[in-house]
């Protein structure tokens, strides 16, 4: 009798849980899974809604990305640009960990104020941020060049535009990362530090031997999400870089050459290659995650 009651309770709990997750599952299926399947199917066609064409072309769209004289250079350069821009991820994470460690120090004063200041970029409009940074990097009257009395073509040089984007993205990403790392650091038991101090450990030793190893789960999460986000940069290219050649990323290629020209087959093929790369990199990260310390 007791067992039957318990199983009824379990079933009811399961149903309640299902009711909570159903909207998410429906949303995922309708707006993500179905779209992915359709898009995957498009990638094997010459689908163009305006022409009304949808002929099965096998892997032609995939090979065109690397061989077609019209798209090859733009696609390959967009890959290189995207990879270059991914440098923002290690830089952002390194700076964030250091700031978080500094702010986590008991002697650090004004923690709350700094936390708000550092988190501000994360809650500021992406459009506003991009326009302000664009103004700062402007060659002729931008704040940076004016301050240094220089004429550095940040926004027009193919390499410098990427450097400018990395600087902007490091600044923009720090807020969220610092909060995550601080949360991770606050979960580290004080006993570790006290024991280390008794053994005569200094702040640097404590950081590398205690703090860093114990925030690796947060670091692992941050690396994965930052890299996935980094591969999908688009808004910066349009809003900050104004579509400058050196800034064009894979997603920009998909938008401009694919959707912008109604070449949905080509756009879908590029999207799937990008998705595949992201999945492989993420899988590799999970495969080689022995450096992540999950012990308490």
């Amino acid at each position, binding site marked *: 009798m007791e067992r039957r009651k318990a199983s009824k309770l379990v079933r009811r709990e399961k149903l309640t849980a299902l009711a909570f997750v159903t909207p998410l599952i429906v949303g995922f299926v309708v707006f993500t899974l179905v779209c992915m399947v359709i898009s995957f199917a498009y990638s094997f066609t010459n689908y163009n809604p*305006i022409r*009304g064409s*949808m002929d*099965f072309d096998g892997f032609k769209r995939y090979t065109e990305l690397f061989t*077609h*004289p019209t*798209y090859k250079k733009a696609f390959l350069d967009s890959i290189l640009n995207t990879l270059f821009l991914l440098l923002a991820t290690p830089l952002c994470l390194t700076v964030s960990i250091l700031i978080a460690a500094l702010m986590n120090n008991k002697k650090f004063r004004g923690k709350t104020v700094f936390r708000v200041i550092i988190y501000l970029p994360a809650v500021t409009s992406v459009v506003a941020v991009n326009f302000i940074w664009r103004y700062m990097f402007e*060659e002729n009257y931008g704040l940076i060049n004016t301050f240094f009395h220089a004429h550095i073509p940040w926004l027009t040089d193919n390499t410098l535009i990427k450097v400018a984007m990395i600087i902007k993205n490091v600044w923009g990403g720090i807020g969220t990362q610092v909060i995550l790392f601080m949360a991770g650091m606050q979960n580290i038991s004080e006993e570790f530090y006290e024991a280390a101090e008794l053994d005569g450990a200094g702040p640097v030793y404590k950081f590398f031997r205690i703090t860093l190893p114990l925030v690796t789960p947060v670091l692992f999460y941050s690396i994965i999400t930052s890299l996935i986000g980094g591969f999908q940069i688009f808004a910066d290219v349009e809003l900050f870089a104004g579509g400058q050649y050196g800034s064009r990323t894979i997603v920009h290629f998909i938008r401009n050459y694919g959707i*912008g020209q*109604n070449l949905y087959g080509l756009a879908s093929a590029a999207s799937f290659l990008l998705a595949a790369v992201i999945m492989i990199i993420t899988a590799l990260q999970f495969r080689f995650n022995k450096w992540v310390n999950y012990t308490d």
Partner: protein
Amino acid sequence: MKTGTKIAGITLSLMLGMAAFAGCGGGRGSASVEPFVNDYDPNREYNIDFLGWGDAKEQEIYKRIINDFMAIHPNIHVSYDASSAGEYLTKLTGEIADLPDVFYLPDTEFLQWVDGGHLLNLIGENGVDEEKLKNVWDNAVNEYFYNPETFQLGRSEGAGMFALPKDQGPFTLAYNIDLVNQRIAANRLEDDEEVKALFSHQPVTWTVFRNAMKKLLQGAPSNMYGVPYYELEHAVYSNNAEFFNEDATVSRLTSPAMVDAVQFIGDLCTDGITPKTGLAMNGDGADNMFFQGNALMTFVGPWDFATIWDLDNFHCDLLPVPYGPGPDRQYNTADDGKSTAFIGSMGYCVAYKTKERGTSGASLMLAEYLCMNENAQRKFYSFGQCVPNLKDMAYNEYVPDSLGILADEGHTDPAHRDIFIEIVDGFKDENDKIGGKPRILYQTYFSTWRTNLEDAINQSKLYTGEQTAQQVLAAHEPSFQASLDEMSGMLRK
């Protein structure tokens, strides 16, 4: 079953499914030149959708004009929707299965949309009022003709008319009068013949343009330029050059006139008249440079004056674009270029589906009203949105501001509005020195070729003088020709 085999199985199933799906849905529509059949019945109520774009101000004026239309035709209810310019085509394409009755279409998209069979031919016994159309700019009207048999754009035997012109956007040079006067005074150029010629509002040669600009910029701050960038089409068109042959199948990139046009743009950079960004600096960057007084002139369309009037911090007037020596590379010969600006245009299209809906007649009435109604056109030009579509209104009312509409609003700039009109009116005879042509993308299926060409020029060392235009264009020509082949294959498939 192993995971790998499962994935392969799913992939194969999807591909096979797609093959079947593609087999069912393949093929494309094609333009129909069947004569327009007017299904309008004054005793019936109509609900028609109209999709456009524009900022809040433009949307407001459209709402007012549409209300005027509905007051005249109380049985036609127009539902007006608009998006931002940047999102418009995505929105329109998203509605492709059920297009609005009337919608904007930029001339640069016209070929693909008309070839896809989405637009209704407006010519027929009870179709567009061709008598009234005679008062609309010929170039604007001709632009929206297309013959699906010969794939020929423009008026020709057997062609249909698939849109009515929304407006004509002559894109020419505007200069900051106050800044130019300062430079003239600073360099004591009051009596300089080349400077006087440049601001005479008559076309000058490229040589005069470069020399006058160099003189004006002497001693100027290092962040001041003559022009933020130079429009590629203006250089090409004004040198009697061509990007490709008549049916856009064969590249003309390395023809002498084309090479010289691109070299002219490179020379402007090496002279310091334009920044080293070359063609890459356009849009907001160029506008800001001009509005902030860091450039003597820039390229503008009529719509830019709404901003200039709002800023109200300098006086501004128009100039015709300079011209090159033409294919023989010598001035004062028969093939000299003529001052030719590009004219941006958009059409009011009626969806082919209105035939099924029974709303084609009412839709055409709305399109005609917006395109040709006097009151509507007057409101559009007073708003600073465009030059009038109606020739008599443009010449007799807009240019002299005979009704004082612009003066009353304090919108006296540009004083030489006639330059806009001369561009839109095209070359009337051999002696006509100022004219305009549609944007080059009007002639092609996609814009990738144009993006790639500008990228190739911008990525080269043309702007520093380390490479010549001949070298840059020759290196890019195979890729350019491949793009033309691809587009030609699509059109003729």
